[in-house]
C-alpha cells in the first residue's frame, strides 16, 4: 500500500468543482450531510406531530397553545403531514440519500458520485419539496386531510373536506417535486454503483449496504415514476376537468360533480392500483438500506463473516423483485376481485421467505459470537428484534380473510410502525453511531465518535419506548379499533362502547409514545455534544473491513482532482475476519496481506 497523501486543506479548497463548505456543493459527503440534516428536521417535526395526535386522542379536550382545540380536520392534517414527512422525507431520504451519499462512493472505492451536480440538484429539489409541503399548513382551509395515501375522490374534489383545496394542491406539488428529485438521485446511485467501482470491486464483493442501496435505487426508479404518473392524473382531475379517478354521478356535499369532471367514468380504484404499485416498493426502499447496514454492523461487531453472504445478496434482490408484485395486498377489501386477492396474498406470503432467510442469516452470524456491544451494535440487534416482531404480523395481514377483520385497525398501525418506522429508525440510529466519524470528519482531521454512555441510555430508552408504544396497538387493533379516528371518546351508539373498551390501553400507548420521544433527548444531546467534543475516532475505529474506513481515502477525495497518487484497489470481499477464534485479526478489503491489531 502506498503512503497516504499528505492532506493540504488550502490546496484542496482551491479546486473549482469540490467546495465542501459551499451550500450548493457538489461534494457527495456534503450533500449526504445536508440530506441527513433535512431528514433530522423532518423527523423532529413528524415526531412532534405524532405526539400531538397521541395527546389529542387521549385528552381530546386539551387546547393546543397558539392554535386552540384540535379539530377533526386538524387531526387528519396531522395524520397527513406525519405520514408524508416520515415516509418521504425521513425513511426515503435519510438512508438512501443521506447515508447513501455519505458512504456509498467510499464503500465502492469511488471518489465521488457519478453526477455530482445532479446530486446537488436532487438535494435542493428535495428541500424545495419539503418547504412546499410544510407551506400547506398555512393554506386557507389548512393542510390536506386525506392521509399520505390520498385516496380519491376525497383527494380529487376540493369540496370534499377542509384542506382539500389549496392544501391538497401544495401536497401534490410537493410530492411531484419529491418524485423528480428521488428519480434523479436513484439514477445517480445506480450509475455510481455500476460504473464507479474501483479496481477489484466485483459485484459479489460489494458490501451488503451497497446492495441495499442499489436495490432500493432500482425500486425508486420504477416506483417513483409510477407515482409521478398518478400525481399527474390526479392533478388533471383537480384542475383540467378530467375524470380519471372521479366516477360518474359522484355527489360531494350535495353537489353533483359530473359537470366539473366531463362525462368520464373514472375509477377511484385506479388510483389505489397506481399508488400502491409505488407505495409498496416504497416501504422496501425505506428498509432495504437498513437491512444491509444491520448485516454489516452485526458482522463487524461479532467479528464474523455474514453467514451465507451470497444468499444475503440474492434475498435482497428477491425482496426487491417481489416487492413490485405485492401491491394488491393493500386492497383486499378495497373492491378488488376476490381472485386477485388470492393472487396478491400468495405473492405477499412469498416475500416472507427471503425475509426469513435474512433473519436466519443474522441469527447464525451472531450465534455464539460474543459480540462487542457498542451502541451501533445494540441498535443493529434492536433492528433484528423489531424487524422480527413487526415482520411476523406481516403474513397475518397478508391473508385476505384475516385482513377482512384487521384492515385499517390499530393492528396494521402496529405492524407497519414496528417493521418500517421503528426498524427503519433503528437502522438510521445504528448508521449514525457507526458512521458518526464519517459524518464529522473534515479535511483537516478525522471524525469523532459519539458518546457510548449516552448511546446506551438512548438505545434502552428507545427500544423500551418502541415496544411500549406499538405492542399494545396490536391489542387495540384486535379489539376492533379503527385507525384515522380523530376522536376515540364521546362517540355515540354501539360504536362508543367498542371504542371505550381499549381506551385504557390507548392511554398507556400515549404514555409509551411520550417516553419514546423523551428517550430521544439523550440522542440529540449526544449528537450536539459529540459534534464538537466527541473523542477523535482515529483510523478505522471499529476495525471494519469495508472501504469507507480505508485510511486516507477521505482526505484523498477532498483533494485536488489530479493530486491523489494512490490507486484504490480491493483485494477481497468484506467481513473477512479470518480467524473465528481471534477477533483481533481482520482483513480489510483494501489490504492485500493480513493485518492484526
Amino acid at each position: 500500500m502506498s503512503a497516504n497523501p499528505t492532506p493540504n486543506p488550502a490546496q484542496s479548497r482551491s479546486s473549482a468543482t469540490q467546495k465542501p463548505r459551499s451550500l450548493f456543493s457538489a461534494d457527495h459527503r456534503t450533500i449526504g450531510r445536508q440530506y441527513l440534516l433535512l431528514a433530522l428536521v423532518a423527523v423532529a417535526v413528524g415526531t412532534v406531530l405524532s405526539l400531538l395526535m397521541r395527546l389529542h386522542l387521549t385528552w381530546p379536550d386539551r387546547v393546543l397553545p397558539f392554535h386552540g382545540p384540535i379539530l377533526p380536520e386538524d387531526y387528519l392534517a396531522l395524520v397527513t403531514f406525519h405520514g408524508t414527512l416520515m415516509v418521504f422525507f425521513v425513511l426515503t431520504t435519510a438512508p438512501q440519500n443521506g447515508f447513501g451519499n455519505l458512504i456509498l462512493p467510499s464503500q465502492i472505492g469511488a471518489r465521488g458520485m457519478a453526477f455530482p451536480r445532479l446530486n446537488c440538484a436532487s438535494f435542493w429539489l428535495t428541500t424545495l419539496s419539503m418547504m412546499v409541503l410544510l407551506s400547506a399548513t398555512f393554506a386557507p382551509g389548512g393542510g390536506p386531510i386525506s392521509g399520505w395515501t390520498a385516496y380519491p375522490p376525497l383527494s380529487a374534489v376540493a369540496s370534499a373536506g377542509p384542506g382539500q383545496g389549496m392544501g391538497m394542491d401544495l401536497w401534490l406539488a410537493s410530492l411531484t417535486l419529491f418524485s423528480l428529485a428521488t428519480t434523479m438521485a436513484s439514477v445517480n446511485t445506480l450509475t455510481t454503483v455500476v460504473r464507479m467501482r474501483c479496481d477489484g470491486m466485483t459485484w459479489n464483493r460489494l458490501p451488503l449496504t451497497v446492495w441495499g442501496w442499489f436495490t432500493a435505487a432500482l425500486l425508486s426508479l420504477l416506483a417513483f415514476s409510477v407515482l409521478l404518473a398518478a400525481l399527474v392524473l390526479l392533478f388533471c382531475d383537480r384542475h383540467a376537468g378530467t375524470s380519471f379517478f372521479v366516477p360518474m354521478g359522484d355527489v360531494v356535499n350535495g353537489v353533483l360533480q359530473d359537470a366539473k369532471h366531463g362525462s368520464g367514468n373514472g375509477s377511484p380504484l385506479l388510483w389505489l392500483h397506481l399508488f400502491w404499485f409505488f407505495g409498496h416498493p416504497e416501504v422496501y426502499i425505506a428498509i432495504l438500506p437498513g437491512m444491509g447496514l444491520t448485516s454489516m454492523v452485526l458482522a463487524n461487531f461479532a467479528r464474523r463473516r455474514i453467514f451465507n453472504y451470497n444468499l444475503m445478496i440474492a434475498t435482497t434482490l428477491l425482496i426487491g423483485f417481489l416487492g413490485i408484485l405485492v401491491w394488491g395486498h393493500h386492497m383486499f377489501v378495497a373492491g378488488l376481485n376476490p381472485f386477485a386477492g388470492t393472487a396478491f396474498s400468495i405473492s405477499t406470503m412469498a416475500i416472507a421467505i427471503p425475509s426469513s432467510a435474512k433473519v436466519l442469516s443474522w441469527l447464525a452470524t451472531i450465534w455464539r459470537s460474543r459480540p462487542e456491544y457498542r451502541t451501533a451494535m445494540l441498535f443493529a440487534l434492536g433492528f433484528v428484534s423489531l424487524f422480527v416482531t413487526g415482520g411476523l404480523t406481516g403474513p397475518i395481514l397478508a391473508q385476505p380473510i384475516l385482513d377482512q377483520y384487521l384492515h385499517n385497525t390499530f393492528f396494521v398501525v402496529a405492524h407497519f410502525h414496528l417493521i418500517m418506522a421503528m426498524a427503519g429508525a433503528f437502522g438510521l440510529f445504528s448508521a449514525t453511531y457507526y458512521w458518526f466519524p464519517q459524518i464529522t470528519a473534515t479535511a483537516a482531521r478525522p471524525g469523532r465518535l459519539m458518546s457510548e454512555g449516552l448511546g446506551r441510555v438512548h438505545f434502552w430508552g428507545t427500544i423500551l419506548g418502541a415496544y411500549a408504544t406499538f405492542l399494545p396497538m396490536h391489542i387495540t387493533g384486535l379489539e376492533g379499533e379503527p385507525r384515522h379516528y380523530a376522536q376515540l371518546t364521546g362517540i355515540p351508539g354501539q360504536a362508543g362502547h367498542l371504542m371505550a373498551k381499549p381506551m385504557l390501553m390507548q392511554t398507556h400507548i400515549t404514555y409509551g409514545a411520550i417516553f419514546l420521544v423523551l428517550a430521544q433527548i439523550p440522542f440529540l444531546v449526544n449528537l450536539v455534544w459529540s459534534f464538537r467534543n466527541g473523542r477523535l475516532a482515529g483510523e478505522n475505529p471499529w476495525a471494519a473491513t469495508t472501504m469507507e474506513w480505508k485510511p486516507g481515502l477521505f482526505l484523498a477525495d477532498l483533494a485536488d482532482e489530479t493530486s491523489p497518487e494512490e490507486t484504490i484497489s480491493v483485494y477481497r470481499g468484506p467481513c473477512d475476519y479470518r480467524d473465528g477464534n481471534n477477533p483481533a485479526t481482520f482483513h480489510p478489503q483494501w489490504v492485500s496481506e493480513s493485518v492484526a491489531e
Partner: protein
Amino acid sequence: MTFASISGLSLSPQLSPGWFLPMDASSHGPALDRHLLLNLWIAGGLLALVHLVLLVGLLARRKGLGKRSARAAEILPLGFLVLLFVGLTVQAEILWAAARYTGPDPAALQVEVTGMQFAWYFRYPGEDARFGRTEPKLVAPAEGNPVGLDRGDEAGRDDLVAAELVLPEGRPVDLRLRAVDVIHGFAVPEMRLKQNAVPGQTIHLHFTPTVAGTYAILCTQLCGSGHYRMQANLRVVSPDDFEKWLASKRSGAAQ
C-alpha cells in the same frame, strides 16, 4: 373498567373468543377466529423462539461456527417456515374462497348500504324484492332522500330507507355497498366483516348473522373530517321482530 376487560380475558357477558377479539356473531366468524388465533399463536411462538435464539446466541461462550451445522441452521428452518407459510396460505385461501368466491344464497335478504359523508343509509327493497331506481342528482339527505331514490319508479315505491341496519337472526344477507361521494369502509367488527364502498361501483358482500344483539357499524376508510363519527348500529333481531320492524317502518313510510 376491570382488569379482565382490558386484559382480554373478557368476563363480560359477550364472550370473546380470546386474544382480545370482540364477540363473534356471524356464521363465518368462528372459522375466521380459529384461523386468526392459530396465526397469532404461531406468530407469538416464532417471536419468542427468535428472541430466545438471539439471547442464547448472545450469552453463550464464543465458538466458531462449523460450516455444515451452519448450513443446516439456515436451510432446515427455512424449509420448515416455507411449509408453515404454505399451510397458512392454503387454509386462508380456503376461507377466503368460501366467503368471497361464491355469490350469496338466492334466498338471502337484500339490503343496499349507502355511505356518504358522514352517515350510512340502508335500503330494503320492500315486498316486490326489487330496488327502485336511484339518480345521483336526486341525492338530498336534508329532504329525506339520502340515497337519491327516484319516486317515479314503480319498483321504488315500497323501498324503505333506514338509518340503522336491522337484520333477522340466522338468515343470509346480501349487502350491496355503494358510496355517494368518497370511498368509505363498511365494517362490523362483531361480524368479522370489512369492505370498502367505492363511488361508481356496487360491491356485494354476503354473510349470515347468528347472534341477536346490537353491534357497531364503523367507517374504516378515511373519508373526511367527520370520519370518526360515521357510524350506525346493526341490530340483529329474531325473524318475528324483524317482520314487526319492517311493518312498523312501512306504516311509518305510508303516513
